[in-house]
């Protein structure tokens, strides 16, 4: 269920915490396992993480459903996490989200037919002076305009 490579990565996180506190690594472990499973967590993967960290399944499930970065429904290969909070809103994020939706032919929360991209409206990502902005993977894209969005999205493979 959890690959050796994933276990190795999880172990580096476990090493940061005191002995017996391996469940501190659950948030990263879930991310690592999610990344290996089409960006999505299932009952079984959550249980596998719980077992690996020697914690109750429901405790891992609590974490997996509390934090926003875990997906429990199918998502695209790339998730565009578009901030729609106040600073971005003041800078026109609503119009840009509408533009993106039209361009991709999906609504926020949906996945493009080819499974490549899904769009999610998220709360403040802490880059307010670069508003409007979104995140794809580890990368922030700031001071967005319709043209810039088109370029970025067209470059996604």
């Amino acid at each position, binding site marked *: 269920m959890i690959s050796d490579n994933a276990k190795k990565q999880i172990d580096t996180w476990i090493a940061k915490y005191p002995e017996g506190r391996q469940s*501190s690594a659950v948030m990263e472990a879930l991310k690592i396992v999610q990344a290996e499973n089409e960006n999505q967590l299932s009952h079984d993967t959550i249980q596998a993480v719980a077992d690996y960290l020697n914690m109750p399944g429901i405790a891992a499930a609590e974490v997996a459903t509390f*934090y926003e970065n875990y997906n429990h429904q199918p998502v695209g290969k790339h998730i565009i996490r578009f901030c729609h*909070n*106040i600073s971005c809103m003041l800078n026109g994020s609503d119009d840009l989200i509408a533009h993106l939706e039209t361009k991709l032919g999906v609504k926020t929360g949906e996945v493009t037919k080819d499974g490549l991209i899904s769009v999610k409206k998220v*709360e*403040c990502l802490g880059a*307010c002076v670069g508003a409007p902005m979104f995140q794809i993977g580890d990368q922030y894209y700031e001071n967005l305009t319709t043209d810039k969005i088109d370029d970025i999205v067209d470059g996604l493979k």
Partner: protein
Amino acid sequence: MNEVCFKNLDKDQCWSLETYEASGGYSTWRKILKGEYTPDEIINELKISGLRGRGGAGFPTGLKWSFMPRNAEGQKYIVCNSDEGEPGTCKDRDILRFNPHAVIEGMAIGGYVMDATVGYNYIRGEFMEPFKRFEGALKEAYAAGLLGKNINGSEVSFDLYSHLGAGAYICGEETALLESIEGKKGQPRFKPPFPANVGLFGKPTTINNTESFASVPDIMQNGGQWFADLGVENSGGTKLFSVSGHVNNPANFEVSMGMPFSELLELAGGMRNGAKLKAVIPGGSSTPVLTAEAAMAMTMDYDGIDKAGSMLGAGSVIIMDDSTCMVEALTRLAHFYYDESCGQCTPCREGTGWLYRVLKRIMDGQGKADDIDLLLGVQEKIMGNTICALGDAAAMPVESFLRNFREEFEYYIEHKKSMVKG
């Protein structure tokens, strides 16, 4: 400008150990390793500096550090709160990206003062670029023999790790953050006990904001008085202000406390398109909104903003011009708290959704005449009744928006459309 956390901002590779050390970085830490500082001396300098918690609460850092039972037996922890997520706030991201070693040194100094040999920097999960910068800096510091156990035979030990969040604003609340490091949901703990006595893994713990830690090395290097003199009475030093919204040059500005708001607005390039200033949220989304008049008369320090009727908070200045629909702005903020409430305690779990739904209904043209009283009533019932400050943070904008811009809400309810946007 840019005298403390941002002092190397204009340099190449400003985040590197080399740049940091060239400007005197780690000199305090090296002195500590040589036994040239006692914890009390450091606490004393911090008290003189007037440094107050930069995360939003504004509690004097020197005093906070003196509360830690540093002579207590057993493991103690020091934790940095880099879970920046309050709408309008984006300064810690830049500190981590551009001056990570100041955070490391600040934490190490704190660890020494409070006899905490292990530290964690809790970085919000989306901050992958800052996380990688910080990890890189940690690697440099370890390689340079600045961190570890019994560093250079000094008998001083300090191990520092970063912990990543996974998307929950509430983890910026310090006890929720501790729960999160323990691998649990970020649900704030009730207090007492306070983290200084029962904190991370049940051990005494001090939590400070990234900017607070990053300010410590320069305070030690130049003296507390130097820092105090940068600012004004009761608000020592400089402060990072994130200026966003309807300005020409939105950015983070490190300026002296006490700067008039009008000057800060100028620094940010003034109002975009020459529009008229309508409202300012001076300290992040949870601080009360101010009218243009109140804002223009205010100075950017704890007392100045307090006098204007709001709070300095995290120094997140959101500028709104006269094209802004205040009903829409408040609805967006209400949605944020509704979305980010952890759900643990009743008033916040039930009240934030209620507030949002009433506002949403008004925006959908289904407002009722008594909705304003209802909103005021609900926010009042949340206020002060919750485990943590998120309840108050959700309530305060509602109260201040309705107090300062009530006519826009009345208009929206009556005409089923925005007074500003039509």
